[in-house]
């Protein structure tokens, strides 16, 4: 079996890691973030009548956005095309795409790649929740295949900030990488 060479540690203590550039990192580096589970930290923002999005991170340098999509009952997210990549993990319920033969359930993992277009469906009576890590543009189409709108980090940020403004919720800086 492959093993890690680093010594196992059972000590609950911080080891001072040698760091030549500590001052630089403190001055110019960006801290990691923590977003707790509560709605005070990031609310469920309605996304149509049957769904909501809980925004977790925005990276405007990479056009990256991370959120939890919650579809509350059986429903659909219409056909959309990705021009960036997507990583996702199922959290609750189940969802599938009309284009593929798998069903993503809690704990299961999927990727989507630039150039793919697909139609998300949940048949579960309780719908689904899944964590999505997305990069780049996400294009939505009408029933005739006409392009209607392109969503990217700016759309998701506006979705979050508009809701916060309208509901008197403070913007959580932890969401901005």
């Amino acid at each position, binding site marked *: 079996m492959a093993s890690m060479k680093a010594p196992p540690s059972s000590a609950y203590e911080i080891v001072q890691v040698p760091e*030549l550039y500590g001052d630089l990192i403190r001055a110019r580096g960006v801290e990691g973030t923590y977003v707790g589970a509560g709605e005070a930290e990031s609310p469920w923002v309605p996304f149509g009548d049957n769904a909501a999005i809980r925004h977790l991170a925005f990276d*405007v*340098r*990479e*056009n990256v956005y991370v959120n939890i999509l919650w579809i509350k009952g059986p429903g659909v997210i219409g056909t959309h095309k990705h*021009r*960036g*990549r997507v990583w996702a993990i199922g959290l609750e319920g189940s969802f599938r795409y009309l284009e593929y033969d798998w069903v993503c359930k809690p704990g299961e993992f999927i990727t989507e*790649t*630039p*150039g793919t277009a697909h139609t998300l469906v949940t048949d579960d009576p309780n719908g689904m929740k899944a964590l999505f890590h997305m*990069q*780049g*543009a996400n*294009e939505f189409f009408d029933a005739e295949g006409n*392009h209607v709108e*392109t969503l*990217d*980090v*700016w759309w998701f940020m506006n979705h979050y900030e508009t809701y916060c403004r309208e509901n008197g919720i403070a913007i959580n800086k932890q969401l901005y990488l």
Partner: protein
Amino acid sequence: MTVMTAPPSDKAAIVDVKFPHKALVERLSPGGRYIDAATDVDSPWVPFGDNAAIKHLAFDVRQNLFSNILWVKAPGVIGTHFHRGTITMVCLEGSVRYLEYDWVATPGGLILETPGESHTLVTDHPQGCKLFGWMQGPIDFYDEDANLIDTTDVWWFINHYETYCREHGIAINPKLYL
């Protein structure tokens, strides 16, 4: 003065780095590579309108990433376009500017562009410009009335390259595909 802690070496000799996962790298890494961007040996100039051409250098379909040299051959314009990814460009020849900014890029100059920006590229130089670009994500092009006309991304650039190669009996160069 800051010094590098790695020992200076003037020995032209390969050091065998003991990376423990070499076999995995050998099996799965696409590998680095050299593409001759100065001649047409690795990649031809593919016409891009009447006054411009593109030399395609790299495509990464996993990241929607594409690299090329844009050559605008005489004073001209690349119309207003909107970026949803990050762009790194180096001016190689001539000069280029954007109507939106107050700088003019000259050879050796570096241009960075970030998601959410739109701008209009102009070269006033009699010989136009050559620009090396390393680009991620789609670029949306608009008409005069700000209607979205076309979105170009790695697939558009691959198709631009492959169509020209097919039409001119040029072999597809697998080195361009990361």
